[in-house]
């Protein structure tokens, strides 16, 4: 199903869409305020970007260095070329510990590898312990946002889910009551877990340590109680030196939620006495993305979610409409590299307004990559697929009157700057429905070239 079709589904509940849109915009505004408080913010972003560029250009060396240092600290290091290997490695570690109960903190990588259903099929209980992730897990849905996994759920939805699964009392969605009940429920899971699985925010080559950031403390509750800790990371999580955490931790939470730092930034270097620590390093398509010159910078991503919060299409279409583990603008440049055909509508789920690139803490040229994927898709895919996708998303999502108030600027911008064939395409739902005004000014290609030059 294309993004546009799924977005139309999400748009059936207009009140919810309006709330979703506003809530995320509010997070974006918090990000702005927080960023403006930092002396040298733009320089900090540039550093983040340059450090990541260096990482990619020397990644094999850093990985080897990281592995050696981690091993020196008594950490077991595993390598997985793909999702299947990743899942098998984890299953083997769990078997060794005879583990039946696993608690997991947020990890988009384990989502990407579909670890939960795999382990469940082996009779292992896997509990997601981040509250948002637990909510979507109970609802049997994937997260719809990488930082705010349950942003598409209302408090009433959560109330009902908790009544059904945790036996709570009806509370009309009282957040404090619901969080309190979740705390009790998950505390029990932490206390009874055999093994804890976490993601990795940063893996430091020169120390062999990994850093995990949470607000809830769920990663630490899991790791410090369980017999063994398994940390799963994509190869691109490497940073060269520990002092570079000083750059990335300053950028991450501010970009994500506007907090100056997450509540907990936990540095795991050695297992506690009598316990085990494992790190699984995963490729799963990343080295292929590394080979694509135009798209490799997508591997800079530190998963802050800022590009989602700012994107007018994401805000009005919801994360599930992307049908990919990582939704939003960054997901739309990562997913075609995984499966061009399946995700060919995603690079079109954008107005190319550039807001994503402007907020990205590691300065990924997201909107330029979206445009480049469109060119690849136009060349490689059969025309009907392309025609159906082009601007249909924008058509569906931006056709609601409410949006003109919320994101009018973007819509007008698109009118002015999108290539003519996109707007006046016969199959474009949006162009058909509206009488398009004449737009004066630079055309898209001029604008695009100029923008590229100005970096």
């Amino acid at each position: 199903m294309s993004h546009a079709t799924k977005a139309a589904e999400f748009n059936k509940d207009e009140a919810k869409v309006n709330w979703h849109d506003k809530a995320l915009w509010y997070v974006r505004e918090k990000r702005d305020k927080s960023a403006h408080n930092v002396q040298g913010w733009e320089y900090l972003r540039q550093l983040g970007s340059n450090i990541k560029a260096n990482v990619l250009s020397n990644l094999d060396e850093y990985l080897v260095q990281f592995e050696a240092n981690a091993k020196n600290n008594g950490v077991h290091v595993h390598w997985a070329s793909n999702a299947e290997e990743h899942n098998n490695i984890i299953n083997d570690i769990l078997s060794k510990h005879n583990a039946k109960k696993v608690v997991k903190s947020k990890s988009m990588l384990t989502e990407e590898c579909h670890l939960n259903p795999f382990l469940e099929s082996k009779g292992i209980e896997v509990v997601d312990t981040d509250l948002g992730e637990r909510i979507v897990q109970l609802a049997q849905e994937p997260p719809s946002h990488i930082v705010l996994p349950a942003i598409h759920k209302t408090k009433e939805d959560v109330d009902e889910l908790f009544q059904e699964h945790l036996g709570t009392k009806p509370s009309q969605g009282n957040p404090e009551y619901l969080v309190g009940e979740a705390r009790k429920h998950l505390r029990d899971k932490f206390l009874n877990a055999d093994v804890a699985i976490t993601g990795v925010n940063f893996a430091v080559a020169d120390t062999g340590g990994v850093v995990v950031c949470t607000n809830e403390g769920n990663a630490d509750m899991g790791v410090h109680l369980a017999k063994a800790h398994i940390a799963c990371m994509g190869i691109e999580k490497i940073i060269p030196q520990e002092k570079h955490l000083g750059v990335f931790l300053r950028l991450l939470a501010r970009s994500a939620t506007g907090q100056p730092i997450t509540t907990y930034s936990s540095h795991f270097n050695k297992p506690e006495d009598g316990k085990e620590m494992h790190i699984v390093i995963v490729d799963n398509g990343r080295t292929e993305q590394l080979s694509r010159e135009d798209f490799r910078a997508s591997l800079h991503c530190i998963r802050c979610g800022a590009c989602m919060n700012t994107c007018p299409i994401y805000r009005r279409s919801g994360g599930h409409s992307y049908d990919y583990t990582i939704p939003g603008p960054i997901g739309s440049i990562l997913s075609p590299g995984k499966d061009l055909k399946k995700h060919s509508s995603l690079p079109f789920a954008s107005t190319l307004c550039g807001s994503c690139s402007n907020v990205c803490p590691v300065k990924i040229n997201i909107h330029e990559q979206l445009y480049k994927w469109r060119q690849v898709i136009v060349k490689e895919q059969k025309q009907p697929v392309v025609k159906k996708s082009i601007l249909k998303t924008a058509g569906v999502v931006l056709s609601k009157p409410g949006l003109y108030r919320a994101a009018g600027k973007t819509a007008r911008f698109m009118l002015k700057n999108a290539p003519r064939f996109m707007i006046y395409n016969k199959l474009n739902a949006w162009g058909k429905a509206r009488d398009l005004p004449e737009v004066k000014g630079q055309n898209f290609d001029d604008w695009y070239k100029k923008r590229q030059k100005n970096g």
Partner: protein
Amino acid sequence: MIGIKNDKKMGREAILKSVKQNKPELLQLPDINEASFEEDINLLETFKNNLKVVGGFVKEIDKKSIDTEIKVLHSNKTNIVSTTKKSALGTITIDKNTEPHTLENIDLAILEAELGVSENGAVWVTASNSIVRVLPFITNDLVIILKKENICLHMLKAYDQIAERHRDFGVFVSGPSKTADIEQCLVVGAHGAMSLAVLLI
């Protein structure tokens, strides 16, 4: 287990080979010009403000009145662990071999932190400060004692200061645990400590 080892090796070599083939030409690692981040601000006041913003309680107190202050903040706690000589309020003693699960019902933990960061109100807590790593997370309430002179400007300076440590486990803690996962309503007290008070001496 032999099978696993083989897979491991294959994955490793395949990944490294593929990286080598696909990586771009070497790009320089940038130097960090810390002068760009210099600010003439009051470290102590900024730290206090930021800690309040993230939901923490903070107070400058006299070294001699630590226990009096804690008793005012937490009047009726029974299961208290203090891992610092600076407080004598502990009712339960722990050591390195204490089973972490037995700390399930700790009401209050009192720890000393080595470093504070003014830009975000975070304090640096190590495994040796906690004795048992889970302590600052599993306790219901957390009190941290910090020397005022150990507050630095920002995270880059913080990493300079902890560069020489023994690396096992350490955590920057900024405020009490919290979540906004239900309709973006901020609720303090998720899985970690329900409250954090930093006492500055």
